[in-house]
């Protein structure tokens, strides 16, 4: 940098490097921050530290073999990714999924949304310095992860949905256990609300910080709670309904304030709505098969298809191109965090370095899906 003095401010610019190993960057994100004093003049995110060439690997695997890789992109909310991928393959091949399987998939995706938002809440608390929320949030997550383990056999990267439905039916006793686990959750969320949301320190640190104007958010391709925290009620489950979401009654959480607090409140509300959705699924789920039988050598016809779901981070899209063989020609995973992260330079100018931690935390990025 040749110009070290900015005109008029009289302050020298310092370049500070945050990451790639940093406790608050939620993964291997490198932020190159240009500071004037303590005020941010510019932020350049540098990504690619977790680029695992998932898309190239997808071209070298069978369609079924790619399912575990989908989980590992957005590893905190893996079910959403798998759901998007299997939906895209089913669209490509024209496969009908039984209704019971759709209910199970939606239920697991919403439970995964709960665990994902609880991880976000815990990490956000640690970023803000409130480590109690970390312990409370991770504790609330454990019963839900036990439920997921009961059904899928895994705690984090489930890789459980299949092209055509689900591999197994729900185990006996799942209904009772799920209702039991969800019964306590709203009360615990209220407790965390009092502890954290009502905390004056958090309110000062989050209100009016990191304003993302709605037009800029849409133009940048931001989605999910990042965009809904700016008042744009775009939720893929309502806008482009998939699976059995049209049958479910839930509200789209949106906040008009456009700041970190708005995005925070959207996620808290989404957790409550997810509980509602899972309970409705438990009530409405019909009996029946859980899997459409597919030929053993699965070869979808040549063509292209795309599908999208509302992952905990936003609009997660999958674009598939097939040349008629048993391996995809192109698997493209459109990650919401990739687009959301682009907003960081726009919304953090003028704030302090500590606010940058709050801003990046409020976007809830997962580097696995940013870098793929």
């Amino acid at each position, binding site marked *: 940098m040749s110009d070290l003095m900015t005109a008029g401010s009289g302050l020298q610019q310092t370049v500070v490097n945050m990451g790639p190993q940093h406790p608050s960057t939620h993964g291997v994100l490198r932020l190159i921050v240009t500071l004037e004093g303590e005020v941010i003049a510019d932020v350049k995110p540098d990504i690619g530290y*977790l680029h695992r060439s998932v898309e190239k*690997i997808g071209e070298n695997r069978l369609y079924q073999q790619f399912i575990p*890789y989908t989980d590992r992109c957005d590893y905190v909310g893996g079910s959403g990714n798998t759901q998007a991928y299997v939906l895209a393959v089913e669209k490509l091949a024209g496969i009908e999924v039984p209704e019971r399987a759709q209910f199970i998939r939606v239920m697991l995706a919403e439970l995964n949304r709960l665990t994902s938002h609880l*991880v976000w809440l*815990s990490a956000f608390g640690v970023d803000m310095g409130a480590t109690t929320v970390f312990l409370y949030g991770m*504790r609330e997550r454990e019963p839900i992860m036990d439920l997921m383990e009961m059904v899928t056999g895994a*705690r*984090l990267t489930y890789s459980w949905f299949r092209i055509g439905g689900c591999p197994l039916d729900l185990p006996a006793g799942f209904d009772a256990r799920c209702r039991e686990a969800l019964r306590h959750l709203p009360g615990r969320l209220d407790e965390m609300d009092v502890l954290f949301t009502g905390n004056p320190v958090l309110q000062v640190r989050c209100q009016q910080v990191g304003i993302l104007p709605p037009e800029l958010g849409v133009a940048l391709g931001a989605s999910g709670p990042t965009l809904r925290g700016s008042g744009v009620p775009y939720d893929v489950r309502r806008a482009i309904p998939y699976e059995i979401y049209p049958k479910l009654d839930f509200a789209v959480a949106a906040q008009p304030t456009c700041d970190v607090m708005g995005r925070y409140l959207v996620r808290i509300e989404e957790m409550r709505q997810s509980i509602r959705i899972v309970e409705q699924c438990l009530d409405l789920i019909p009996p029946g098969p859980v899997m459409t039988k597919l030929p053993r050598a699965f070869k979808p016809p040549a063509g292209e298809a795309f599908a999208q779901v509302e992952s905990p981070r936003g609009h997660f899209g999958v674009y598939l191109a097939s040349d008629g063989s048993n391996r995809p020609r192109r698997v493209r995973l459109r990650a919401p965090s990739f687009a959301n992260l682009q907003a960081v330079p726009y919304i953090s100018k003028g704030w302090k370095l500590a606010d940058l931690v709050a801003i990046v935390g409020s976007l809830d990025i997962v580097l696995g899906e940013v870098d793929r």
Partner: protein
Amino acid sequence: MGVINRAAEVLVKVPGGSILLAPADFVINWARESSLWPMQFGLACCAIEMMATAASRFDLDRFGIIMRASPRQSDVMIVAGTVTVKMAPFLRRLYDQMPEPRWVLAMGNCAGAGGPFLDSYSTVQGVDRVVPVDVYVAGCPPRPEGLVDGLLALQRKIHRMSLAGERGERVTVG
């Protein structure tokens, strides 16, 4: 500690010297293993399970393990996740910044041997290509109990250390 190590090596050769060394070994190893401070090097999915292990249900604090953000203040580097070509030099640099005695625990299949991303053009097939590894914990991701098992195995390994002796062989858990 270099002077003490040399003194210990001399002492071992003296007849009866090991008797003096054993209590010192015991105390020093006990101090080191009971207060292992990992540098949180969460790269990918395993980092979330590492967080869960450190959290309420599987509590690592009861083993004396407190996650530190800085390499200068840590004893063990838990490499949790896939190491990519862009990250590897930084991983090496952070390992070099850790003061001795230091250990490395490779958590998960990616850090152990490349995992599902074995044939990727941008991942390193196992972190042991970059840093020497003491304990491998298998799994994708390993269960928190598995990570605890790995850390306890590391504690047992430290227990076997001697001021005058070798670091010990690599251990695989899980």
